[in-house]
């Protein structure tokens, strides 16, 4: 037993120490920074206690950003789940070319974000972009649409682009869950005369649910933190319509030069996410125990 503990320590320690040094320690620094009034990196700052917290919490733009973050996360979760589930279900079938499809579905995920951003910025633009002429030809719109012109459409467009990049990865994780559902279950259901929808409802969905649950938690954390796509495409605009918390943090730190305030927003965002993660993993554990 003693030996196992020592061994466990040796195996786990490198990874833990690594994370502590690269993520844990900087996080402590961020907390420290949030209690001071540093404006620019390298400038000195005095200890101000919780001043930054009361200022941030009473600032409507913080709450607006928090709300937009929730919208962002939920919209991404919904769209990605729908797209990914459709892909996963299809790829779980057998048809000619399925192996090729299984490999290349991942294409959008392996393209660097910056490239994704430039591709879509071009495609959605009104000079040379492909999307508008396509929509006009199809008779869906009459005049070119400004996809980033209103807060609502900008958010929707960003969600689409981010989901376009991430859904293949989620789909493959789902596919992994699907392939482990034994074929005989489906066979038995078929013999019982269940139709496709019933088979999905009674077998696929309940057995896939735990995978979906875990993916939902991690996916939420990952998509909450998405920053580069939003920043590079809209910088949080128009009129603050896509300014989620990570964008607000960056803007406060590097545009407004209020480093301490940015650190405060980060700490608050972290608390929010941790609360979510703890509640969500508890819920999942309970699901497991059943």
């Amino acid at each position, binding site marked *: 037993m003693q030996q196992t503990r020592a061994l466990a320590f040796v195996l*786990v320690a490198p990874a*833990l120490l690594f994370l502590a040094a690269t993520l844990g320690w*900087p996080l402590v620094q961020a907390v420290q920074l949030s209690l001071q009034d540093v404006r620019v990196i390298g400038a000195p700052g005095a200890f101000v206690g919780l001043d930054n917290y009361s200022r941030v919490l009473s600032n409507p733009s913080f709450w607006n950003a928090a709300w937009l973050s929730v919208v962002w996360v939920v919209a991404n979760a919904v769209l990605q789940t729908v797209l990914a589930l459709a892909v996963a279900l299809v790829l779980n079938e057998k048809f000619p070319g399925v192996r090729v499809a299984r490999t290349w579905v991942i294409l*959008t995920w392996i393209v660097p974000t910056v*490239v994704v951003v430039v591709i879509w910025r*071009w495609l959605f633009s009104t000079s*040379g972009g492909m999307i508008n002429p396509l929509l006009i030809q199809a008779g869906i719109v009459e005049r070119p649409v400004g996809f980033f012109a209103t807060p609502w459409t900008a958010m929707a467009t960003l969600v689409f682009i981010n989901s376009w990049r991430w859904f293949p990865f989620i789909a493959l994780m789902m596919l992994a869950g699907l392939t482990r559902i034994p074929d005989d279950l489906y066979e038995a259901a078929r013999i019982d005369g269940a139709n496709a929808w019933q088979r999905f409802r009674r077998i696929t969905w309940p057995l896939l649910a*735990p995978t979906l649950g875990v993916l939902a938690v991690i996916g939420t*954390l990952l998509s909450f933190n998405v920053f580069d796509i939003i920043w590079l495409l809209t910088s949080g605009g128009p009129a603050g319509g896509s300014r989620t918390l*990570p964008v607000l943090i960056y803007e406060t730190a590097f545009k407004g030069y209020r480093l301490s305030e940015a650190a405060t927003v980060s700490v608050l965002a972290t608390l929010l996410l941790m609360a979510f993660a703890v509640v969500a993993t508890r819920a999942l554990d309970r699901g497991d125990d059943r």
Partner: protein
Amino acid sequence: MNRSLGLNAALVAVVAFFVVLVGLPFWWVVSGSFKIPQEIIARSPTMIPQSFTLQHYQKLFEASDYPVYLVNSLIVAASSTVLTLLLAIPAAYAFFRLVFPGRGILYRTILLAYAFPSIVVLIPLFGLFAKVGLVDRLPALVIVNVAFALPFSIWMLRSFLAGVPKEIEEAAVMDGAPTLTILRRIMIPLIAPGIASVGIYAFVTAWTEYVFASVLILSDAKRTLPVGFSGIIGQYQIDWGLLLAGATVAIVPVVAIFALIGRGFVSGLTEGAVK
């Protein structure tokens, strides 16, 4: 498996939808990179290029250090992958098999690494790297990328380990094999496809990372591909042709890599257990 006609039609429709969704943007980008500038920004864009030119590629390779960026990216991504696996495999095994105090809490804490906006650590990390002389050096990027890939990798590997039939491991324990030998000789080969998928996950994370690479690297000769690519955008003018050529070249190497090992990734994911 027999499918009804309706189901088959639905299948074809869904496949077609996704082929368009994924394929069309890539087609536009790649074909656009061979068009002359006037055609790229034309008011009525063309699906099939009406012109052909290599001028954008010529400009790209003449004037920018694209090959250097490419090599840097490969070095960073490959090193990140190796280091991630070296750290993640032992940790995942310990979390999976060994009983030690604080296991549950530690395991959960690791996943909490994703619970804060990554830009939070940008400034403290810059200070830290400055102290140890890692600013403007590729190892700094490796460290950052591993930090971001590690938690998810441990979690994925642990579920792959959980998918190994108990009997195999128990047999080895009965034979009196030491824990490390079991890990090395039995478990690692058994979850090899899973390891491949985690490796690709780490590789792609490093390959696509932009924000940290853009701030931590100061000199042109050490830029990675995403940062080098963003550099050709330019402040006052956009040369769409150059950008499309740049995008194409940024996509091609990882597509090539994926063509070689992509099948392993997917089969690894689908054969291992993810719970």
